[in-house]
C-alpha cells in the first residue's frame, strides 16, 4: 500500500539537506528564535507569564511555523509538477500514498531536527548556568517531554497542511503562500478561542458533537498549559493526528487527479 515509501523518504531527505534554501530558512529561524528566547529569559521575572519558561520556545516555534513550514514543504510536489518529474515518479512501481507519506515524513523529520536544535538553547543555559536553569525549571524532565510532544504533534499537522498545499499547484511560490495562509488562518482561529471553552455552549445533540470536534481541533492551544507541565492530553494528540491524516489523504487524492 505504501510501496516506495523508504526510497522516497531517503531521496526527499537528501534533497532537503542539499538545498541551500532549507539551510538559509533554518538558520534565520533558529537565530530569531534564539534571540527571542534570550530576551524572554532575561525579562521573565518582570512578566506575568504563568506557564513554565520552556513553553516560550513552543510559542515561538508554533507561531513561527507559518514562516518555516513553507520552506520545508513547498518544493515537494509543486516542483515535481513544474518539472514533470511527478509523471516519471508515478511510472515507477510506487503507490500514491507511499509518495505522499515519503515526502511528508521527510519535511516532518526536518521540522523535528529544527525543534531539537531549538531545544539546545535551554540545554546550553543548563550547561553553563545550572543554578539559573534550575530556577527557570529547566531541570524538570516532564516539562521537556510535554513541550516536545506538543511541538511534535502540531509539527505533524502543520507539515501535512504544507504537503497538501504543494500538491495543488505547480508553482513553488503559490504553494508557499498557500501554506502560510492556511497555517496563519488555523493559528488565528486557535488564538480566537484561546482561553475559552468552546464546547460548553451546547450540552447534547448534534450541535454539541460539532462544537466538541471544533473545540478539540481549534482549541489545541488551550491544551498547551497541560503539555507544558508534562500532562499529555491524549485527545489533543489524536485530533492532531486526524488533521494530519486528513490533509495527507487530500494530498493523495490530489495526486490521483493527475491520472484523470
Amino acid at each position: 500500500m505504501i510501496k516506495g515509501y523508504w526510497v522516497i523518504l531517503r531521496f526527499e531527505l537528501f534533497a532537503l539537506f542539499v538545498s541551500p534554501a532549507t539551510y538559509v530558512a533554518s538558520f534565520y529561524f533558529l537565530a530569531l528564535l534564539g534571540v527571542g528566547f534570550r530576551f524572554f529569559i532575561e525579562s521573565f521575572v518582570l512578566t506575568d507569564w504563568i506557564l513554565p519558561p520552556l513553553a516560550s520556545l513552543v510559542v515561538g516555534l508554533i507561531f513561527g511555523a507559518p514562516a518555516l513550514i513553507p520552506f520545508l514543504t513547498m518544493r515537494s510536489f509543486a516542483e515535481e509538477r513544474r518539472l514533470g518529474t511527478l509523471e516519471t515518479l508515478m511510472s515507477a512501481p510506487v503507490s500514491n500514498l507511499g509518495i505522499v507519506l515519503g515526502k511528508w515524513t521527510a519535511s516532518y523529520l526536518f521540522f523535528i531536527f529544527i525543534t531539537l536544535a531549538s531545544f539546545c538553547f535551554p540545554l546550553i543555559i543548563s550547561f553553563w548556568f545550572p543554578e539559573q536553569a534550575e530556577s527557570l525549571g529547566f531541570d524538570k524532565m516532564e516539562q521537556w517531554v510535554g513541550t516536545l510532544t506538543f511541538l511534535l504533534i502540531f509539527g505533524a499537522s502543520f507539515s501535512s497542511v504544507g504537503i497538501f498545499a504543494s500538491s495543488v499547484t505547480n508553482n513553488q511560490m503559490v504553494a508557499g503562500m498557500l501554506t502560510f495562509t492556511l497555517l496563519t488562518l488555523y493559528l488565528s482561529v486557535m488564538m480566537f478561542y484561546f482561553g475559552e471553552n468552546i464546547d460548553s455552549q451546547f450540552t447534547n445533540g448534534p450541535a454539541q458533537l460539532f462544537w466538541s470536534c471544533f473545540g478539540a481541533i481549534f482549541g489545541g492551544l488551550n491544551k498547551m498549559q497541560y503539555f507544558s507541565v508534562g500532562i499529555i492530553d491524549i485527545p489533543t494528540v489524536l485530533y492532531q493526528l486526524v488533521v494530519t491524516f486528513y490533509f495527507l489523504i487530500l494530498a493523495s487524492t490530489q495526486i490521483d487527479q493527475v491520472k484523470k
Partner: protein
Amino acid sequence: MSNERKPLPIVEVLNLRKRYRSTEALRGISFSIGKGEIVGFLGPNGAGKSTTLRILSGLVAADSGEAKVCGVDLAEEEGEVREHIGYLAENNPLPEDFRVIEYLKYRASLKGLKGSRKRERIKSVLEICDLERKISEKRIGNLSKGFRQRVGIADSLLAEPRLIILDEPTIGLDPRQSAITRKMMERLRGEVSFILSSHILSEVEACCDRMIILSHGLIVAEGTLVELQKKFIQSVAFEIVSKAKKIELQRSVRKIDPQCELLQDDPVEITGRRRFTFNCSKGQETVELILRTLLEGNNFEISEFQVCRPDLETIFLKATKQNWQEMDLLGRGKNKIPKPQN
C-alpha cells in the same frame, strides 16, 4: 503445427476509449504487440499517441476498454504492470540538481533493485546508453539534450522491463545521437518489446518491425512497411536509365500497360542516357513483365532498372489524409464520427 501455442502477446489492447472533457482522445482502439517486437506509433499531433502510451504505462486511466501488459490487466493490477514497463516520457523530465549516478541509483531503488543486482544493472545501462564515468558524475542540469535523453533511456532500461515505451525519444537530438538510440534498440531487439512514438518517419521506418498509424483517436493503418505499401500504394513507380528515345520507350511500355504513365524524363549527366520514371497502376508483376519485354527487345540499351518503393511518409500522408477526408466529409457532428475498428 496447428497445435502449436501462440506466445502470449506482451500488450493487448481492446476497444480502448478516453475522453478529456469535450475531446474524445481515443475512440475505441484495439491492437496487440508480440514479444520482442518493435512497434512504431505514428500520427499527427493530437492523434492520441501519447494518451495511449500514458494509459499503457499506468499514468492515465482509460474510460473504457481493456488493456493488458504481460497478461496483467491495467485496470486491476496497475502497480504490478508498472514493474514490467520502462517508460520514457515526452520531453523526458529529470531532476536538475542530481548527478546522473545518484539519479539512476534512486530510480533503481524505486524499481525494487537491491545490492549487487542494482550495481550490476546501473553499470550495464550506463554502458548500453554510452554514458561513460565522466558523464555519470555530472549534474543532470549541466547535461546537453542528447545526454539527458540517454539518462532517460537508461532509467527506462534499469529494471530489465519486458516492455519499453519511448515517447518521442529522439526529439531534438542530432543524427549521431539518434543513431545511438537506434543502436540501443537494435541491441535489445528480440529480448524486449518496444513501443516507439515518433514524428521522425525515417527513424520509425529504419528500426520498427511494425507500425500503427493513429488519427483522430482511431487506428487508420497497422502492419509492416510492406503490408502498408500494399494497402495504401496500389501503383508502382519504376525508373529506367536508357539511351532509348522517349517516344519509342513509351510506346513499348504502353503495349503492355496502356495506363502506364511517364512521370519524369531527366538526362543522366554526360552519359547521353536519360532516366525515365514511370508509374504503373497494375502492380509489381506488370512492372516485371515490362522490364523483361524491354530487355528482350535489345533496342533500348537499358543500363539501370529500379522499382521505387514508396516510403513511410507517403503511406502516412495517405493513411491520415483518408481519415481527415472522412472527418470533413462526415462533418463534426457527434453521430457522424466514423465507427472504430475492432
